[in-house]
């Protein structure tokens, strides 16, 4: 998955500020990343880290109060600054999104098949019978049993997992080249989550799509993504191939997230290493590293200046003055 090919989506120094009542809130603060064809990229962070806003900004799905700067190029074409009309050409056709709550995205009064057919016709000039046929094919593609019968059903007749499959079918209606799954399995049970994740990866391989997983769940990201980006307070704080991130974690925040996950391997009643505090107020970020107030390794320089995100080792970026496991700090933490 190394960038031999050209990036499908290239985001450069993206900033999103919400103006409105009170002080402006810098939700995304200079984020840069690339997604390559066939790649699975996960963006991980807690509530308010900016992971969702940074993706919606690319899709043009933010409210009027959001001010965006920077660049987001899809297959070479700049998306930031396009009108809604121009963006609509890309949404669905090039980039599609699946959200956490399928019940809110589906129309409760419309048969699910018709909703998929509508998505097909929104982007392609096909007749109604053709759209219907394609909708049934899409239901089959997302492994829904007896698709002809399911076509006629309403959202409330389907389980949560089935509804999410329908959402994926709608997202795939125009064969997007990039699919963004925003907490798409968060509301589902573990066995259903595993089904949906397997489905997404199978479809990715079948259709050659790039896949972006937006999630709060680092374990999920580790398990399914090629590349993982960790965000904190609107910034990328670490990025590495999944295998590398979990064997050689550098950013203390990523380490704290990893250590806080309950594991099957832990003995009963094991205590989890915890950090105190809460993510900072995005309208009043501290000087220096945003994570410093909660960081067990923070020193004076962390509170004085912000560490830049840089590629310190091949393919591994982090933003920290005192990374975990650096030679000067041997024995500090394992």
């Amino acid at each position: 998955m190394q960038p031999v090919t050209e990036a499908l989506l290239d985001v450069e120094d993206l900033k999103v500020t919400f103006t409105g009542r009170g002080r402006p809130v810098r939700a995304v603060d200079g984020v840069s990343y690339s997604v390559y064809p066939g790649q699975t990229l996960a963006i991980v962070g807690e509530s308010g880290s900016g992971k969702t806003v940074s993706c919606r900004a690319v899709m043009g799905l933010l409210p009027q109060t959001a001010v965006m700067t920077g660049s987001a190029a899809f297959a070479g074409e700049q998306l930031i600054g396009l009108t809604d009309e121009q963006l609509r050409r890309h949404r669905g056709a090039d980039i599609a999104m699946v959200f956490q709550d399928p019940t809110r995205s589906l129309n409760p009064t419309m048969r699910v098949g018709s909703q998929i057919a509508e998505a097909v016709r929104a982007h392609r000039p096909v007749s109604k019978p053709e759209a219907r046929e394609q909708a049934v094919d899409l239901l089959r593609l997302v492994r829904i049993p007896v698709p002809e019968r399911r076509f006629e059903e309403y959202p409330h007749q389907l389980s949560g997992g089935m509804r999410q499959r329908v959402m994926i079918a709608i997202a795939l209606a125009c064969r997007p080249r990039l699919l963004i799954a925003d907490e798409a399995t968060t509301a589902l049970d573990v066995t259903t989550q595993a089904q949906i994740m397997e489905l997404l990866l199978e479809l990715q391989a079948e259709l050659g799509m790039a896949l972006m997983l937006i999630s709060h769940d680092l374990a999920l990201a580790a398990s399914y993504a090629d590349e993982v980006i960790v965000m904190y307070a609107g910034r990328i704080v670490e990025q590495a191939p999944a295998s590398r991130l979990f064997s050689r974690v550098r950013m203390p925040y990523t380490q704290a997230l990893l250590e806080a996950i309950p594991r099957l391997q832990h003995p009963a009643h094991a205590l989890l290493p915890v950090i105190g505090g809460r993510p900072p107020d995005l309208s009043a970020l501290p000087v220096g590293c945003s994570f410093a107030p909660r960081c067990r390794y923070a020193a004076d320089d962390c509170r004085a200046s912000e560490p830049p995100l840089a590629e310190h080792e091949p393919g591994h970026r982090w933003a920290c003055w005192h990374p975990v496991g650096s030679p000067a700090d041997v024995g500090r933490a394992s």
Partner: protein
Amino acid sequence: MTSAEPLLSVRDLVHQFHTNVGVVHAVSGVSFDVYPGETLGIVGETGSGKSTLARAVLQAPRPTSGSVTFRGTDLTTLHGTRLLQVRRHLQMVFQDPFGSLDPKWTVRQLVAEPLIAYRTGDRAARRERIDEVLELVGLDPAVHGRRRPRELSGGQAQRVAIARAVALSPALLICDEPVSSLDVLIQAQVLNLFERLRAELGLSYLFIAHDLALVKQVSDRVAVMYLGKLCEVGPGEAVYRQPLHPYTRALLDSVPDTVPGAGRAAAAGGAGRISRVISGEPPSPIHPPSGCRFRTRCPRAAERCAAEEPLLRELASGHAVACHFPLVEAAAEHEGVPAARSTVRSDEKI
């Protein structure tokens, strides 16, 4: 488990709801014990009946049939003040802390409520107890005491809910998804708080959640629930290392590995692993399958599974399964080396 008398003993608990589309068989004959100082974890997915089970134990609402014996007294036979007197020793913590806290009250008033309801001590003694439990759950009485729920974060609100639950020094805490609405770093803090309270107060827990890794970490023993019935009960370590029920195996295999690429490898059918995913979805609890309720999704199901309901039987010390074709048949194998496993399991989870 131990030779001690169980603190809580649940037998053949049944809870049915009558709805206009039929009878919902939410809990269908569940039996288990919780011993003093022990944490029994119950893991189950949406619709497994685990939350109904928690409420039925507390008699809120009362179960359809079965017995719930706490320190030798069957709660299902008690009414009015006698039930209330026993219930003060069993407290509950819910998933949504804000839902269980009256938004108009201050933190001090919220923690005082159970103390007043049970007429414990005088005003000064209550004030002292409130300070004590707030500090116990990691809140500063001077800072947080005057706040109202909307001024609290999710983690702080859950601490207040826990403070209310432990104010009366209960013997058993029933927790229903107590951390699933919290971010992972806050979740870890609250889980550690439960562990500290266990050690400091000698609390027993009935800990209910959908996350098997989480349940295993806090529990001495783990019970797996599917569609209203327990399909496996055993020491947490044994359930994890040697699952006996095919559904337990499916749950274990659905937990995202923090081993990079594990999910990808499984999805691609690689690395010699069986697909980790069971197919299909849980059937409706209005029309549960005959025989074994898991059989419609089970890779090992045979005719017998439809005809005859498998009962919980002990295959190894303290490790019981309700399955005609458990993953390990002979009890002897269970005590032996894990090499005796009947299904492929990669080493990375061990």
